[in-house]
């Protein structure tokens, strides 16, 4: 009897603690990640090695290919895509920049893409802190710019974004599966 009651007590406390922890947010299947220009800025900063100020930061979630056909299927052609997973992708500029000849004031924006086989239309939009592209509102667009698709040699398993230096400023490179695009940002 005593054993049974101990067991029941244990069971109750176990169930309680389990239900307590199950309320906590789980780990995402498509984890969030961040890229900066300059690359690895936070590490450079604590090592006093940053030679340029922080220009841009992108926050996005990284879906994985997992054997699926991505472009044209999972990500349908011609539709607005959140450029990642979960929350809409956020790009922040710490100074005014230019994209496609148009001035973009420093601040936070949402970045979407309309994916096609040879061309992606990149969309910079003012509606931040939102989920996916489900409530995408073209009235809040800051600009649209077409960029051409390049093929990567390798198959990129996890969607990746990174900044790179270019002749006129920087480029945001986006790669997944075997597609790669480069969004030019003039400083």
């Amino acid at each position, binding site marked *: 009897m005593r054993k049974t009651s101990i067991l029941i007590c244990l069971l109750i406390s176990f169930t309680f*603690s389990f239900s307590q922890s199950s309320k*906590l947010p789980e*780990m995402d299947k498509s984890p969030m990640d961040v890229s900066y220009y300059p690359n690895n800025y936070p*590490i450079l900063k*604590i090592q006093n090695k940053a030679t340029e100020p922080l220009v841009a930061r992108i926050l996005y979630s990284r879906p994985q290919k997992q054997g699926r056909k991505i472009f044209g299927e999972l990500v349908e052609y011609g539709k607005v895509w959140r450029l990642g997973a979960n*929350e809409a992708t956020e790009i922040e500029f710490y100074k005014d920049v230019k994209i496609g000849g148009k001035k973009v004031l420093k601040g936070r924006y949402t970045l979407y893409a309309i994916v096609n086989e040879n061309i992606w239309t990149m969309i910079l939009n003012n509606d931040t*802190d*939102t989920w996916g592209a*489900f409530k995408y509102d073209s009235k809040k667009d800051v600009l649209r710019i077409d960029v051409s698709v390049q093929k990567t040699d390798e198959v990129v398993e996890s969607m990746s974004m990174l900044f790179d*230096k270019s002749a006129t400023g920087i480029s945001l490179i986006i790669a997944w599966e075997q597609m790669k695009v480069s969004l030019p940002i003039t400083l």
Partner: protein
Amino acid sequence: MKKTLLAALVSIVFFSCTEREKKSAGNDTPTKSDATVKVLPPASNYTNPDRSPMDMVYFPTDYPLLKMAGKTNAPPLMRIIYSRPQKQGRQIFGGLVKYDVPWRLGANEATEIEFFSTATVAGKTVKPGRYILYCIPQETKWTLVLNSNLYSWGLEQNRQKDMMQFEVPVEKTNLAIEYFTIACEKKSDKSTTLIFIWDDVKTKLPVSF
């Protein structure tokens, strides 16, 4: 044949070394070991997801989902961006995370907290804006610190940029929590308890707007 074997061996050794180096870049330990992480040249390759993945917490909880569902028109009140290390059988507090030594409250970059309007945090007024948040853990209490040294890697705190401190008691959980977790427990539309939980330790920080 011998040459091929040798080449294979060399490449294996080389590969395992680079592999190890890659791993230490995503280090979640609060030791100084990743302070010496080599900064790679502008990435020519695509990285793998981080071992301690980044995550984001809003108040109101799941704000982007609420917004998408049309359940809110108001702007968000608070957002936290942090990375989530895992316990993996290790003793965390007093072990991996040393007592009395500043800890980044996560992994990788310093944990960032942004208040979108004026907040009251543990009774103190905090101006809207972006801060980093770190912690000095002790066995029975944590000192949580708001600091202005934004966009920094979490291994080093510039204490001169400390802005505000809050002391909170440590509570024990019944079960060990595998992933370091920050969550908002809603008290009202404008008031929340910010919860930090990992291993068998939990602390709470009241925030209202």
